[in-house]
Protein backbone atom coordinates (compact mmCIF):
# COMPACT_ATOMS: atom_id res chain seq x y z
CA UNK A 1 0.00 0.00 0.00
CA UNK A 2 2.63 2.49 1.05
CA UNK A 3 4.64 1.49 -2.04
CA UNK A 4 1.78 2.53 -4.29
CA UNK A 5 1.36 5.86 -2.50
CA UNK A 6 5.08 6.63 -2.69
CA UNK A 7 5.33 5.64 -6.35
CA UNK A 8 2.27 7.75 -7.16
CA UNK A 9 3.94 10.71 -5.46
CA UNK A 10 7.13 10.03 -7.43
CA UNK A 11 5.23 10.04 -10.73
CA UNK A 12 3.39 13.24 -9.78
CA UNK A 13 6.63 14.98 -8.86
CA UNK A 14 8.32 13.78 -12.05
CA UNK A 15 5.49 15.15 -14.19
CA UNK A 16 5.64 18.44 -12.27
CA UNK A 17 9.40 18.64 -12.90
CA UNK A 18 8.87 18.20 -16.64
CA UNK A 19 6.04 20.73 -16.79
CA UNK A 20 7.64 23.48 -14.67
CA UNK A 21 9.44 26.42 -16.26
CA UNK A 22 10.80 27.94 -13.04
CA UNK A 23 14.18 26.33 -12.46
CA UNK A 24 14.22 27.18 -8.75
CA UNK A 25 10.99 25.29 -8.26
CA UNK A 26 12.33 22.44 -10.38
CA UNK A 27 15.42 22.03 -8.23
CA UNK A 28 13.24 22.10 -5.10
CA UNK A 29 11.07 19.40 -6.65
CA UNK A 30 14.18 17.38 -7.44
CA UNK A 31 15.00 17.52 -3.74
CA UNK A 32 11.51 16.26 -2.93
CA UNK A 33 11.96 13.55 -5.54
CA UNK A 34 15.18 12.47 -3.82
CA UNK A 35 13.49 12.36 -0.43
CA UNK A 36 10.58 10.33 -1.81
CA UNK A 37 12.86 7.80 -3.42
CA UNK A 38 14.81 7.62 -0.16
CA UNK A 39 11.59 6.75 1.70
CA UNK A 40 10.81 4.22 -1.01
CA UNK A 41 14.20 2.59 -0.47
CA UNK A 42 13.54 2.46 3.28
CA UNK A 43 10.27 0.61 2.73
CA UNK A 44 12.25 -1.86 0.58
CA UNK A 45 14.74 -2.36 3.45
CA UNK A 46 17.65 -0.80 1.58
CA UNK A 47 18.65 1.62 4.32
CA UNK A 48 22.17 2.24 3.04
CA UNK A 49 20.93 3.25 -0.38
CA UNK A 50 18.19 5.32 1.23
CA UNK A 51 20.73 7.13 3.37
CA UNK A 52 22.88 7.92 0.35
CA UNK A 53 19.88 9.08 -1.64
CA UNK A 54 18.66 11.29 1.21
CA UNK A 55 22.03 12.94 1.75
CA UNK A 56 23.09 13.23 -1.89
CA UNK A 57 19.83 13.42 -3.85
CA UNK A 58 17.77 15.45 -1.43
CA UNK A 59 20.62 17.29 0.24
CA UNK A 60 23.73 18.35 -1.51
CA UNK A 61 22.72 18.03 -5.16
CA UNK A 62 19.75 20.35 -4.56
CA UNK A 63 22.12 22.79 -2.91
CA UNK A 64 24.61 22.68 -5.78
CA UNK A 65 21.76 23.01 -8.26
CA UNK A 66 20.56 26.16 -6.45
CA UNK A 67 24.05 27.63 -6.58
CA UNK A 68 24.19 26.89 -10.30
CA UNK A 69 20.82 28.59 -10.79
CA UNK A 70 22.09 31.77 -9.15
CA UNK A 71 24.62 31.92 -11.98
CA UNK A 72 22.45 30.89 -14.91
CA UNK A 73 19.21 32.67 -14.13
CA UNK A 74 15.93 31.37 -12.92
CA UNK A 75 13.69 30.70 -15.87
CA UNK A 76 14.08 28.19 -18.63
CA UNK A 77 14.51 29.62 -22.11
CA UNK A 78 11.62 28.82 -24.43
CA UNK A 79 12.90 26.38 -27.01
CA UNK A 80 13.04 27.67 -30.56
CA UNK A 81 13.57 24.41 -32.38
CA UNK A 82 11.21 21.51 -32.79
CA UNK A 83 12.52 18.67 -30.62
CA UNK A 84 11.28 15.99 -33.02
CA UNK A 85 14.73 14.66 -33.83
CA UNK A 86 15.56 14.36 -30.13
CA UNK A 87 12.28 12.53 -29.56
CA UNK A 88 13.16 10.15 -32.39
CA UNK A 89 16.58 9.42 -30.89
CA UNK A 90 15.05 8.88 -27.46
CA UNK A 91 12.50 6.45 -28.88
CA UNK A 92 15.15 4.46 -30.74
CA UNK A 93 17.42 4.31 -27.69
CA UNK A 94 14.57 3.38 -25.37
CA UNK A 95 13.39 0.68 -27.79
CA UNK A 96 16.89 -0.78 -28.00
CA UNK A 97 17.23 -0.77 -24.23
CA UNK A 98 13.92 -2.58 -23.81
CA UNK A 99 14.98 -5.04 -26.53
CA UNK A 100 18.20 -5.59 -24.59
CA UNK A 101 16.35 -6.41 -21.38
CA UNK A 102 14.38 -9.20 -23.10
CA UNK A 103 17.27 -11.60 -22.60
CA UNK A 104 17.61 -10.76 -18.93
CA UNK A 105 15.86 -12.83 -16.25
CA UNK A 106 12.55 -11.51 -15.00
CA UNK A 107 12.62 -8.89 -12.27
CA UNK A 108 12.85 -10.61 -8.89
CA UNK A 109 12.91 -14.11 -10.35
CA UNK A 110 14.55 -16.56 -7.97
CA UNK A 111 16.73 -18.35 -10.54
CA UNK A 112 18.44 -15.21 -11.82
CA UNK A 113 22.23 -15.68 -11.85
CA UNK A 114 22.75 -13.01 -9.18
CA UNK A 115 20.55 -14.92 -6.75
CA UNK A 116 22.36 -18.18 -7.46
CA UNK A 117 26.06 -17.30 -7.30
CA UNK A 118 26.92 -13.99 -5.71
CA UNK A 119 24.20 -13.04 -3.27
CA UNK A 120 24.13 -16.34 -1.29
CA UNK A 121 27.91 -16.26 -1.01
CA UNK A 122 27.82 -12.70 0.40
CA UNK A 123 24.99 -13.47 2.79
CA UNK A 124 26.40 -16.76 4.06
CA UNK A 125 30.13 -16.10 4.15
CA UNK A 126 30.61 -12.38 4.73
CA UNK A 127 30.57 -12.77 8.51
CA UNK A 128 33.45 -15.28 8.48
CA UNK A 129 35.40 -13.66 5.65
CA UNK A 130 34.97 -9.98 6.47
CA UNK A 131 33.54 -9.96 9.97
CA UNK A 132 31.52 -6.79 9.48
CA UNK A 133 27.88 -6.89 10.64
CA UNK A 134 26.65 -4.62 7.84
CA UNK A 135 26.77 -6.79 4.72
CA UNK A 136 26.29 -3.76 2.47
CA UNK A 137 29.53 -2.27 3.75
CA UNK A 138 31.40 -5.54 3.30
CA UNK A 139 30.15 -5.86 -0.28
CA UNK A 140 30.82 -2.21 -1.12
CA UNK A 141 34.17 -1.87 0.57
CA UNK A 142 35.69 -5.33 0.30
CA UNK A 143 34.11 -7.68 -2.25
CA UNK A 144 33.47 -4.85 -4.68
CA UNK A 145 36.31 -2.60 -3.57
CA UNK A 146 37.54 -2.15 -7.12
CA UNK A 147 34.16 -0.72 -8.24
CA UNK A 148 34.12 1.64 -5.27
CA UNK A 149 37.64 2.73 -6.15
CA UNK A 150 36.30 3.59 -9.59
CA UNK A 151 33.51 5.64 -8.03
CA UNK A 152 35.95 7.59 -5.90
CA UNK A 153 38.10 8.29 -8.94
CA UNK A 154 35.01 9.50 -10.80
CA UNK A 155 34.22 11.93 -7.98
CA UNK A 156 37.82 13.08 -7.91
CA UNK A 157 37.74 13.62 -11.67
CA UNK A 158 34.58 15.69 -11.29
CA UNK A 159 36.43 17.86 -8.79
CA UNK A 160 39.36 18.28 -11.17
CA UNK A 161 36.96 19.14 -13.99
CA UNK A 162 35.30 21.81 -11.90
CA UNK A 163 38.69 23.22 -10.97
CA UNK A 164 39.81 23.29 -14.60
CA UNK A 165 36.62 24.89 -15.90
CA UNK A 166 35.52 27.28 -13.18
CA UNK A 167 38.52 28.12 -11.10
CA UNK A 168 39.38 31.81 -11.16
CA UNK A 169 42.43 33.71 -10.08
CA UNK A 170 41.42 35.38 -6.89
CA UNK A 171 42.32 38.95 -6.17
CA UNK A 172 43.71 39.55 -2.74
CA UNK A 173 40.76 40.52 -0.65
CA UNK A 174 40.52 43.66 1.39
CA UNK A 175 40.16 42.82 5.08
CA UNK A 176 38.13 45.93 5.95
CA UNK A 177 35.74 45.25 3.06
CA UNK A 178 35.24 41.71 4.31
CA UNK A 179 34.54 43.03 7.77
CA UNK A 180 31.95 45.50 6.51
CA UNK A 181 30.19 42.78 4.50
CA UNK A 182 30.40 40.60 7.56
CA UNK A 183 28.76 43.24 9.74
CA UNK A 184 25.91 43.84 7.32
CA UNK A 185 25.35 40.11 7.04
CA UNK A 186 25.42 39.86 10.81
CA UNK A 187 22.45 42.17 11.09
CA UNK A 188 20.60 40.49 8.27
CA UNK A 189 21.08 36.87 9.27
CA UNK A 190 21.44 37.17 13.04
CA UNK A 191 18.99 34.47 14.00
CA UNK A 192 20.13 32.01 11.35
CA UNK A 193 23.73 32.58 12.33
CA UNK A 194 23.10 31.82 15.99
CA UNK A 195 21.19 28.63 15.25
CA UNK A 196 23.67 27.45 12.63
CA UNK A 197 26.59 28.14 14.93
CA UNK A 198 24.96 25.83 17.45
CA UNK A 199 24.17 23.15 14.88
CA UNK A 200 27.42 22.95 12.93
CA UNK A 201 29.41 21.06 15.61
CA UNK A 202 26.66 18.48 15.83
CA UNK A 203 26.52 18.09 12.06
CA UNK A 204 30.27 17.51 11.96
CA UNK A 205 30.03 15.06 14.87
CA UNK A 206 27.24 13.22 13.11
CA UNK A 207 29.33 13.02 9.95
CA UNK A 208 32.14 11.40 11.95
CA UNK A 209 29.66 8.98 13.52
CA UNK A 210 28.36 8.01 10.08
CA UNK A 211 31.92 7.65 8.84
CA UNK A 212 33.14 5.29 11.54
CA UNK A 213 29.86 3.51 12.23
CA UNK A 214 29.50 2.31 8.64
CA UNK A 215 30.72 -1.18 9.60
CA UNK A 216 27.84 -1.71 12.01
CA UNK A 217 24.93 0.27 10.62
CA UNK A 218 23.95 2.22 7.54
CA UNK A 219 26.58 4.73 6.67
CA UNK A 220 30.06 5.02 5.27
CA UNK A 221 32.42 7.34 3.51
CA UNK A 222 30.10 8.67 0.83
CA UNK A 223 27.32 9.77 3.17
CA UNK A 224 29.75 11.04 5.80
CA UNK A 225 31.66 13.08 3.24
CA UNK A 226 28.48 14.69 1.97
CA UNK A 227 27.28 15.53 5.48
CA UNK A 228 30.66 16.97 6.41
CA UNK A 229 30.73 19.08 3.25
CA UNK A 230 27.20 20.33 3.85
CA UNK A 231 28.22 21.64 7.27
CA UNK A 232 31.06 23.60 5.68
CA UNK A 233 28.77 24.85 2.90
CA UNK A 234 26.22 25.96 5.50
CA UNK A 235 28.95 27.93 7.22
CA UNK A 236 30.06 29.50 3.95
CA UNK A 237 26.51 30.52 3.08
CA UNK A 238 25.81 32.27 6.33
CA UNK A 239 29.18 33.74 7.20
CA UNK A 240 30.15 34.86 3.72
CA UNK A 241 32.50 33.32 1.20
CA UNK A 242 35.43 35.50 2.18
CA UNK A 243 35.24 34.43 5.81
CA UNK A 244 34.88 30.82 4.80
CA UNK A 245 37.89 31.13 2.52
CA UNK A 246 39.89 32.45 5.41
CA UNK A 247 38.78 29.52 7.62
CA UNK A 248 39.15 26.78 5.02
CA UNK A 249 42.24 26.95 2.92
CA UNK A 250 41.51 26.07 -0.71
CA UNK A 251 44.81 24.37 -1.40
CA UNK A 252 44.45 22.23 1.73
CA UNK A 253 41.03 21.10 0.52
CA UNK A 254 42.42 20.21 -2.91
CA UNK A 255 45.25 18.37 -1.19
CA UNK A 256 42.73 16.34 0.82
CA UNK A 257 40.76 15.42 -2.30
CA UNK A 258 43.91 13.87 -3.73
CA UNK A 259 44.90 12.30 -0.38
CA UNK A 260 41.62 10.38 -0.27
CA UNK A 261 42.20 8.70 -3.63
CA UNK A 262 45.83 8.13 -2.75
CA UNK A 263 44.91 6.48 0.56
CA UNK A 264 42.46 4.17 -1.18
CA UNK A 265 44.90 3.24 -3.90
CA UNK A 266 47.83 2.72 -1.55
CA UNK A 267 45.82 0.29 0.59
CA UNK A 268 45.43 -1.72 -2.61
CA UNK A 269 49.13 -1.45 -3.42
CA UNK A 270 50.11 -2.53 0.11
CA UNK A 271 48.00 -5.67 -0.18
CA UNK A 272 49.61 -6.23 -3.59
CA UNK A 273 53.07 -5.95 -2.01
CA UNK A 274 52.08 -8.39 0.72
CA UNK A 275 51.46 -11.05 -1.90
CA UNK A 276 47.68 -10.96 -2.32
CA UNK A 277 45.63 -9.41 -5.09
CA UNK A 278 44.89 -5.67 -5.37
CA UNK A 279 42.58 -4.44 -2.56
CA UNK A 280 42.50 -7.84 -0.83
CA UNK A 281 42.68 -6.55 2.71
CA UNK A 282 43.32 -9.91 4.36
CA UNK A 283 46.96 -9.33 3.46
CA UNK A 284 47.13 -6.26 5.68
CA UNK A 285 47.39 -8.14 8.94
CA UNK A 286 48.31 -11.60 10.22
CA UNK A 287 44.66 -12.26 11.07
CA UNK A 288 42.64 -12.00 7.81
CA UNK A 289 39.50 -10.64 9.51
CA UNK A 290 41.48 -7.96 11.36
CA UNK A 291 43.09 -7.07 8.05
CA UNK A 292 39.66 -6.70 6.46
CA UNK A 293 38.56 -4.41 9.29
CA UNK A 294 41.64 -2.23 8.92
CA UNK A 295 41.29 -2.10 5.14
CA UNK A 296 37.61 -1.14 5.22
CA UNK A 297 38.29 1.55 7.81
CA UNK A 298 41.09 3.03 5.72
CA UNK A 299 39.34 3.01 2.38
CA UNK A 300 36.14 4.45 3.91
CA UNK A 301 38.30 7.22 5.31
CA UNK A 302 39.74 7.81 1.86
CA UNK A 303 36.26 7.92 0.34
CA UNK A 304 35.14 10.37 3.03
CA UNK A 305 38.12 12.67 2.42
CA UNK A 306 37.62 12.76 -1.33
CA UNK A 307 33.84 13.18 -1.29
CA UNK A 308 33.86 15.93 1.33
CA UNK A 309 36.64 17.91 -0.32
CA UNK A 310 35.26 17.58 -3.84
CA UNK A 311 31.84 18.81 -2.68
CA UNK A 312 33.46 21.78 -0.97
CA UNK A 313 35.60 22.45 -4.06
CA UNK A 314 32.53 22.42 -6.32
CA UNK A 315 30.61 24.78 -4.06
CA UNK A 316 33.49 27.20 -3.55
CA UNK A 317 34.31 27.40 -7.25
CA UNK A 318 30.69 27.93 -8.23
CA UNK A 319 30.41 30.71 -5.67
CA UNK A 320 33.77 32.21 -6.62
CA UNK A 321 32.73 32.25 -10.27
CA UNK A 322 29.47 33.92 -9.36
CA UNK A 323 31.29 36.64 -7.44
CA UNK A 324 33.50 37.33 -10.45
CA UNK A 325 30.67 37.45 -12.97
CA UNK A 326 28.75 39.66 -10.55
CA UNK A 327 31.64 42.12 -10.41
CA UNK A 328 32.07 42.09 -14.18
CA UNK A 329 28.37 42.77 -14.65
CA UNK A 330 28.64 45.73 -12.31
CA UNK A 331 31.66 47.14 -14.13
CA UNK A 332 29.91 46.94 -17.49
CA UNK A 333 26.80 48.84 -16.45
Amino acid at each position, binding site marked *: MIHIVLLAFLVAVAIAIVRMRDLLAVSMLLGIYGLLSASFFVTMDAVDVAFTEASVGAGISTLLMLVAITMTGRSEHPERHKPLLALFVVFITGGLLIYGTLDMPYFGSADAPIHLHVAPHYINNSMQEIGVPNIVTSVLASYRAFDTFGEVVVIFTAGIGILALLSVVRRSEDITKIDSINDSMHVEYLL*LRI*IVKMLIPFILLYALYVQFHGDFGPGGGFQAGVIFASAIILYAMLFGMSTARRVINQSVIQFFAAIGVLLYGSVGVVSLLNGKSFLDYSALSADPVAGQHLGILLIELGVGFTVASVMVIIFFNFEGRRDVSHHQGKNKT
Partner: protein
Amino acid sequence: MSISSAVFLFIGSFLCISGGVGILRFPDFYTRMHAVGVTETLATAMILIGLMLQNPGGLVDLKLFIILLMTLFISPTASHALAKAAMNNDLKPKINKKDDIERVTSSKP
Protein backbone atom coordinates in the same frame (compact mmCIF):
# COMPACT_ATOMS: atom_id res chain seq x y z
CA MET B 1 2.06 2.75 27.79
CA SER B 2 0.84 1.75 24.34
CA ILE B 3 -2.35 3.76 24.90
CA SER B 4 -0.45 6.93 25.73
CA SER B 5 1.79 6.30 22.74
CA ALA B 6 -1.27 5.91 20.53
CA VAL B 7 -2.73 9.16 21.90
CA PHE B 8 0.46 11.05 21.11
CA LEU B 9 0.67 9.53 17.65
CA PHE B 10 -2.96 10.39 16.99
CA ILE B 11 -2.53 14.00 18.05
CA GLY B 12 0.57 14.24 15.87
CA SER B 13 -1.19 12.84 12.82
CA PHE B 14 -4.16 15.12 13.38
CA LEU B 15 -1.88 18.15 13.54
CA CYS B 16 -0.13 17.05 10.34
CA ILE B 17 -3.46 16.79 8.55
CA SER B 18 -4.62 20.13 9.90
CA GLY B 19 -1.40 21.69 8.62
CA GLY B 20 -2.11 20.18 5.23
CA VAL B 21 -5.63 21.57 5.26
CA GLY B 22 -4.21 24.93 6.28
CA ILE B 23 -1.83 25.03 3.33
CA LEU B 24 -4.74 24.45 0.96
CA ARG B 25 -7.29 26.74 2.59
CA PHE B 26 -5.41 29.78 3.79
CA PRO B 27 -5.38 32.80 1.51
CA ASP B 28 -1.76 33.96 1.23
CA PHE B 29 1.83 32.85 1.67
CA TYR B 30 2.33 34.00 5.26
CA THR B 31 -0.76 32.40 6.72
CA ARG B 32 -0.02 29.18 4.86
CA MET B 33 3.48 29.16 6.22
CA HIS B 34 2.09 29.85 9.66
CA ALA B 35 -0.24 26.87 9.36
CA VAL B 36 2.56 24.52 8.36
CA GLY B 37 5.28 25.95 10.58
CA VAL B 38 3.28 25.97 13.78
CA THR B 39 1.53 22.64 13.37
CA GLU B 40 4.54 20.87 11.97
CA THR B 41 6.79 21.60 14.90
CA LEU B 42 4.25 20.34 17.41
CA ALA B 43 3.18 17.43 15.21
CA THR B 44 6.74 16.18 14.80
CA ALA B 45 7.29 16.49 18.54
CA MET B 46 4.08 14.56 19.27
CA ILE B 47 4.90 11.78 16.80
CA LEU B 48 8.44 11.46 18.10
CA ILE B 49 7.24 11.30 21.71
CA GLY B 50 4.69 8.71 20.66
CA LEU B 51 7.43 6.65 19.05
CA MET B 52 9.61 7.02 22.14
CA LEU B 53 6.81 5.64 24.28
CA GLN B 54 6.55 2.59 22.04
CA ASN B 55 9.78 1.20 23.39
CA PRO B 56 10.88 3.03 26.55
CA GLY B 57 14.48 2.73 27.63
CA GLY B 58 17.22 2.09 25.14
CA LEU B 59 19.39 3.66 22.51
CA VAL B 60 16.48 4.27 20.15
CA ASP B 61 14.93 6.65 22.68
CA LEU B 62 18.10 8.68 22.86
CA LYS B 63 18.33 8.91 19.09
CA LEU B 64 14.68 9.95 18.82
CA PHE B 65 15.25 12.56 21.52
CA ILE B 66 18.18 14.00 19.59
CA ILE B 67 16.04 14.10 16.45
CA LEU B 68 13.35 15.89 18.46
CA LEU B 69 15.84 18.44 19.75
CA MET B 70 17.17 19.06 16.23
CA THR B 71 13.64 19.46 14.86
CA LEU B 72 12.78 21.96 17.55
CA PHE B 73 15.80 24.02 16.50
CA ILE B 74 15.59 23.62 12.75
CA SER B 75 11.89 23.79 11.98
CA PRO B 76 11.17 27.26 13.45
CA THR B 77 14.43 28.55 11.97
CA ALA B 78 13.43 27.31 8.53
CA SER B 79 10.06 29.04 8.86
CA HIS B 80 11.81 32.21 9.92
CA ALA B 81 14.18 32.07 6.96
CA LEU B 82 11.30 31.41 4.59
CA ALA B 83 9.24 34.34 5.89
CA LYS B 84 12.26 36.60 5.81
CA ALA B 85 13.08 35.64 2.23
CA ALA B 86 9.49 36.36 1.21
CA MET B 87 9.57 39.71 3.00
CA ASN B 88 12.88 40.64 1.35
CA ASN B 89 11.40 39.84 -2.04
CA ASP B 90 8.56 42.30 -1.37
CA LEU B 91 5.81 39.76 -1.00
CA LYS B 92 3.14 41.67 0.91
CA PRO B 93 0.76 39.91 3.25
CA LYS B 94 -2.80 39.88 1.99
CA ILE B 95 -4.74 42.26 4.20
CA ASN B 96 -8.24 43.59 3.73
CA LYS B 97 -8.25 46.85 5.67
CA LYS B 98 -6.36 49.75 4.23
CA ASP B 99 -4.85 51.11 7.47
CA ASP B 100 -3.44 47.67 8.20
CA ILE B 101 -1.50 47.78 4.95
CA GLU B 102 -0.07 51.15 5.88
CA ARG B 103 0.90 49.90 9.31
CA VAL B 104 2.72 46.89 7.86
CA THR B 105 4.56 48.83 5.18
CA SER B 106 5.62 51.59 7.56
CA SER B 107 6.85 49.20 10.24
CA LYS B 108 9.05 47.41 7.74
CA PRO B 109 12.62 48.61 8.15
